[in-house]
């Protein structure tokens, strides 16, 4: 089968204490999977583990394969993370303008003329539902954006990279219904082309977008693997 | 002294004399005498502090000048010589071996004013001269100036690329040793036993103890302790100790000549 990411007995520890897992799942190419669980269950931690970006002090064990290549803990590299892009839960805007932020990843990863990049960034911001609001103020500092706008900016600049897999950590938590619908449409449009792992605390959203759901329960008592069919 | 309670005796001045004074102070500690030795501002600093009444004993490697006396008319400077320091014009062994063993006053002037830039001009090898002069205010420098210019004023340092200023004696020795073709003034005690350096005779006279004693060697500097008025009380004890045999024995390890050696 065509598994973009597969994790077996993935577990994250803080010294002796197990924070998350063990959890086993695999993401098929082109599928959209929901990752659910109460606050503090370890959803964000799992996403970080998948791209090997755990905060200092936490260690992962269990097996992890990305596009068939095993990833040893601490050995994840830029190559892995261009294939699997994580959009963290807390939106981070960098110094510089809104445009700088929209181009943040592209500029480093895409060898193309500025026009092509601008076009791609515009397209991505459109998909993230932000373009209309910022198109007249692309040169302003990104620090002036509202929380929801930041969230969409972060999503947009990741979408622009067109990675094989996208890990979205509550991408619509700060959005109103209209923006949320725009984002959901864009995510839905990825189905079949890109693999998506979506963390969400909104069951309705998971219902709307995901093929399957992985449920994460807090402490050590995690359900080994709870897969519920959806959609 | 305002009398009454025991007071610490303060001595300050030249870094040349300070180690000797410190050794003497150490010896006198056993006799209940407290002496502090400091080195602020060198000889000149010591003299001006004595004039200001901040210390009781000034340590100096040069005599009190007329300007000093004029600047503080109320102070009765009394100099007591405790030893002497012969200053040589030092060249590298290489230059000396090639024939430069004696320099005349004019040759010394020519070297230090940057007119003689090659040792071949004074009978040495074909090699550039590199001049190290001491910084102003150093006793050594004043001795050299006095030899070359007498009471006249020395000119500005030469605008030559092969000229540099040095400070302490250790630094001077180190730099003379590590620079080919170097020449500079330095206490002869610092050259004894160094096989990379040589002392030249001046106008044919070597800096031996007798020549210093009988005054024929032109470059020596007396080492003084200076007081305001005749030494008395603790001050006198301190100075007497420096003049005693035990006190004089302290000079040799630092490379200076005792009063006996120079015949005083």
């Amino acid at each position, binding site marked *: 089968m065509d598994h973009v990411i597969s994790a077996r007995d993935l577990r994250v520890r803080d010294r002796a204490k197990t924070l998350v897992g063990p959890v086993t799942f695999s993401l098929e190419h082109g599928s959209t999977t929901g990752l659910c669980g109460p606050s503090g269950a370890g959803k964000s931690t799992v996403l*970080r583990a998948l*791209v090997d*970006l755990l*905060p*200092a002090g936490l260690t992962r064990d269990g097996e992890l394969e990305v596009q068939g290549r095993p990833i040893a803990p601490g050995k994840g590299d*830029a190559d892995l993370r261009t294939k699997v892009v*994580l959009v*963290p839960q807390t939106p*981070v805007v*960098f*110094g510089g303008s809104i445009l*700088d932020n929209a181009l*943040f*990843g592209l*500029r*480093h*990863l*895409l*060898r193309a003329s500025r026009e092509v990049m601008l076009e791609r960034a515009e397209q991505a911001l459109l998909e993230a539902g932000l373009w209309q609001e910022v198109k007249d103020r692309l*040169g302003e*500092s*990104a620090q002036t954006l509202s929380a929801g706008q930041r969230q969409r900016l972060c999503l947009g600049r*990741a979408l622009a*990279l067109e990675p094989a897999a996208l890990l979205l950590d509550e991408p619509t938590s700060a959005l109103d219904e209209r923006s949320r619908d725009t984002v959901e449409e864009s995510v839905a449009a990825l189905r079949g082309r890109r693999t998506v792992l979506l963390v969400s605390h909104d069951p309705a959203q998971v219902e709307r977008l995901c093929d399957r759901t992985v449920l994460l329960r807090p402490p050590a008592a995690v359900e080994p693997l709870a897969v519920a069919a959806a959609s | 002294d305002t009398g009454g309670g025991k007071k610490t005796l303060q001595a*300050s001045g030249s870094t040349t004399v300070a*180690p000797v004074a*410190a*050794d003497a102070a*150490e*010896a006198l500690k056993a006799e209940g005498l407290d002496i*502090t*030795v*400091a*080195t602020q501002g*060198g000889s*000149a600093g010591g003299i001006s502090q004595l004039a200001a009444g*901040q210390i009781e004993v000034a340590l100096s490697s040069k005599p009190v000048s007329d300007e000093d006396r004029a600047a503080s008319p109320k102070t009765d400077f009394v100099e007591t010589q405790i030893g002497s320091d012969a200053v040589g014009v030092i060249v590298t062994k290489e230059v000396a071996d090639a024939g430069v063993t004696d320099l005349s006053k004019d040759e010394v002037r020519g070297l230090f004013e940057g007119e003689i830039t090659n040792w071949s001009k004074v009978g040495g090898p074909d090699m*550039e001269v590199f001049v190290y002069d001491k*910084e*102003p205010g*150093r006793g050594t420098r004043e001795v050299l100036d006095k030899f070359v210019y007498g009471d006249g004023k*020395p*000119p500005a*340092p030469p605008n030559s*690329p*092969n*000229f*540099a*200023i040095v*400070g*302490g004696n*250790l*630094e001077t020795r180190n730099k003379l040793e590590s*620079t080919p*073709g170097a020449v500079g003034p330095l206490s002869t*005690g*610092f050259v004894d036993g160094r096989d990379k350096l040589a002392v030249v005779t001046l106008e044919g006279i070597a800096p031996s103890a007798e020549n210093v004693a009988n005054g024929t060697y032109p470059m020596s500097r007396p080492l003084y302790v200076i007081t305001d008025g005749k030494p008395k009380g603790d001050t006198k004890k301190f100075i007497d100790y420096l003049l005693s045999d035990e006190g004089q024995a*302290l000079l040799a*390890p*630092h490379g200076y000549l005792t009063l006996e050696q120079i015949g005083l």
Partner: protein
Amino acid sequence: MTRVRPPAAPDVLKRPRPSRWVWPWMLAGAVSLGAVLLALLGYLGSGVAGGEVAWGELLTESMWNPSGGVFGGLAMIYGSAVVCLIALVLAVPVSWAAAVAVSEYLPPRVAGILRTSVELLAAVPSIVYGLIGIMVVRPLIAGAAGVPGGDSLLAAGLVLAVMIMPTMVAVSVDALAAVPGRYREAAYAMGLTRREVVRSAVLPLARSGMRAAVLLGLARALGEAIAVFLVVGRADGRLPGSFGELLDSLVRPGQTLTTKLAGPEPVLAGTSGPWFAAVCALGLVLLALVALATVWGNRGGGRKATGGRSRHPQAGRMRVPLDRAVGGLRIAALLLPGALLVGMLGILAVRGSSAFTPSFWVTPATGAAGGGVSDQILGTLLLVVTTGLISLPLGFGAGILLGLYAKARTAKVLQTLTVVVGGTPTILLGLAGFVIFCTLMGWGRSWLAGALVLVPVVVPMVALPTCGRVRSMPPETTEAALALGLSRAQYVRSVVVPYTWPATLTGLLLGLARAAGETAPLLFTATVFFGAPALPDGVVEAPVQALPTHIFTLSQDSGDPQAVAQAWGSAMVLVLITAVLLSAAVALRNRFEGERWTT
């Protein structure tokens, strides 16, 4: 859910921990800086007023000949500029690269050790740097440029580069450590390489702190005397006329403003008259140069987040190899300070082996060069601790005030003043302190005067990194604290102070390390070479003995080999003591830094 709460709503009028002391505290910090500057300017100004100064000649004439009545400072200005430029051009890239390596490349444990080691380098007294310059740098230049001796502007620049590197690395590492991890996470998560993450996500946020690092380095470079002293050649009046001569002048002896001021002339020149006036005028020129350099170094500090960046990074075909290469270079940059540390400690340990006999530490000196150095150790500790206790609150307060309240323009002015104080040659501090404490106030030589004179050395080193850290504080943090109803004072006390504390400690460490090795101001105000009691029995008439002045006096004129051994042994002791103090403070800092603040 039942609610059983004491009905008492918070009573604002009776706030616990009102922390109102923060205002006088911050003010005291700022005032102390101003007072030092005023004292300096007053000292120099009155000197200038005591004799006619031909400013035109001073700034355009290259010859300096006091006995001939010619006072030209141009060659010294040239020397200072060249030496500092060489030092900065060499030290800035290496230090920044090494700092990035420590903060972003190495595992935390290794990084921590390296960071402490680098800070230890800052604790080596400057006279040791100078002696090592004589032993290593001069022959190098003599050989490479084919000049006799090797005393030269270039040698001075090299020694300075080495000297300011630890300061710049330590402060830069600190600035980098303050960048919240979420910025790195966000950038890595988009597939950026380490080099790209550093360049695009980390450096922009660390910039203000890293700039403060350079300013501190610059201040130290301009103000350092003794080390430069021993290798620059101190030849007056040499100014190149053509490009060829300019290149040649680099490998020839020269003079800087600082070495002139730190030499014997300020003492020889008396206390008034044209010579003294000219010397004081040189002091003013030096202060003005530090100010100019600071303003220049700060230019463009205004275009922060908002302005478009001038050059956009471009994706390259060779991203990954480039990343490796740059990473390799950065780690290699660490080798330089690393090798220096090892070499320097090696030389110190061999030459100063007497420091390893316990009796050397606990017995007092006998005479000039016999016995141990226990009195000197006690004196140094007394001076350093007193200086630290006074400087820490003042520098901390001033730094926070600068970072928090100064408007952009005022901040620049104040920051410049801070650097000027930091860049003042310490001999000037010593002389001004001597005039103020010993002449005007009638104190004798006293440990307190010594500590007070060292305070201006430390305060800027504390204030600048503190200010840089305050500036990098995320605005959300401020909002969150004030939104909970904290008063401004409480906000400063409970949010700003803990946030900036690690940077402050780094600054304090570096400042105290520098103060511990200072000689010039102490010779005039506080220390004697021999004969002071182990601990002073008074305040104003109570001199002490200290290690740096002990080393200085012994390394001057004594032909006694035992004196030389004693000097090296004392230097080793000084480094070891500083190392111990440093480790204690570093442990403290790491505890605070462990809790990085995030939003």
